[in-house]
């Protein structure tokens, strides 16, 4: 029996507790800083608020379990999004989710100062092919650079640039926004 008592005493020694506290603090800051962006990304990927919340919960729990693997805090965001994307892929393996009516979306209150209809934009983003939509969401929601997106999606940077370019052009032409930037911009 003394073997067990010894082991417990050892784990509750102060250096371990200090380490646990540090780990907890680090985790809490990660959650506080990134959970909102993770949620927004998850929402646009799965188009369901409940599923998006579950995905973020799962992602964070998994992150907690392997937080010791995260050596550099600078790569924390990329690391979390990788976990989230993996979790989402796993969900798709389990089942294909039914589509949700676009009218059900809970959208943040906004001032309507733009001449474009945001509802229409949301619909158009939603109908983009996934190859275009994913880099676009990673850029606009998570704020990743083209290099970071390339790393996330395991593509080369030029492919990412092309996909972003096409996604935005597709949106623009779908939105029938005419942008007069031909000719002279080349000169």
């Amino acid at each position: 029996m003394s073997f067990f008592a010894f082991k417990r005493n050892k784990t509750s020694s102060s250096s371990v507790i200090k380490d646990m506290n540090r780990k907890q603090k680090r985790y809490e800051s990660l959650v506080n800083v990134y959970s909102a962006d993770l949620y927004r990304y998850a929402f646009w990927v799965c188009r369901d608020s409940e599923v998006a919340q579950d995905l973020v919960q799962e992602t964070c729990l998994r992150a907690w379990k392997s937080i010791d693997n995260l050596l550099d805090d600078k790569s924390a965001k990329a690391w979390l999004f990788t976990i989230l994307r993996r979790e989402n892929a796993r969900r798709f393996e389990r089942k294909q989710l039914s589509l949700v009516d676009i009218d059900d979306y809970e959208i943040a209150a906004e001032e309507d100062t733009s001449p474009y209809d945001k509802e229409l934009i949301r619909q158009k983003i939603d109908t983009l092919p996934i190859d275009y939509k994913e880099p676009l969401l990673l850029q606009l929601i998570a704020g990743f650079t083209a290099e970071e997106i390339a790393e996330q999606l395991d593509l080369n940077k030029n492919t990412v640039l092309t996909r972003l370019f096409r996604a935005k052009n597709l949106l623009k032409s779908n939105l029938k926004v005419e942008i007069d930037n031909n000719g002279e911009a080349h000169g």
Partner: protein
Amino acid sequence: MDDILFRHTAIATPNDKNEEFLKRAANSECAQKLVSEAKEFDQLLKDSLDVKVPNDLAGKILLEQSFAIEHDKTMSNRWHIAIAASIAFIIGLSLPMLKSGIAPNESFDATENAIVSTPAPHADIGSVALQHVQKEYFLTAKVNEQASIQNVNVKLARYGGTAKPGLGNIYFVNYCSFEGSSALHMILEGEKGRVTVFVVPDDAGFEPSAEFSNQHFKGISEHVGKANVVIVGEQDEPLNKMKEKLAKTIKWDI
């Protein structure tokens, strides 16, 4: 940087910090216009994608994590107990055998010894509750799910209770691991601050304790229906008021 690459970059990543791109953008008014229009379009898309994040998402995530830690701990504690029980069992079995080999008459005594070494009885409900509240204090102090009475009833039903409106603010309601048994964990608004209420099923087998406290918290517990209701608050909280409120609003199956 040629024209096509510049145009692609401007539209795809107008915030690119690449020196060549920046130089090229500063080159002509038209180039600047292209970049600023692309930035505007990006901002428009960003605004469109800005969905409302659920209230206190971070708090919920941290709470979930604390449950996971608690669960892991309970599991590892059980592992110790399981090993200890196995060893006790083996000793219990082998001692009489050994002894019977040497002196058959003494085997009865040895069996009795083995029975004496069974595990200690269950912990008392009060100290488990205090420990639980203290451990999760930093989380529960922040969480606010604004749960409805329906949320409470869905979870309370399992313990044979039905609540009617009048509980006041419900900051949190969910199942939790109460030293390994599944209990209901509610955080309600008290007179002075937050009050934690546990509903612990009888079959969890804790030692009852009507009143308990430590340097930070105090608590009371009461047996109702097929469960124990444990109320824990800070030292200056009038817990009996909460007890009366619960008695008025929750009906328990007998």
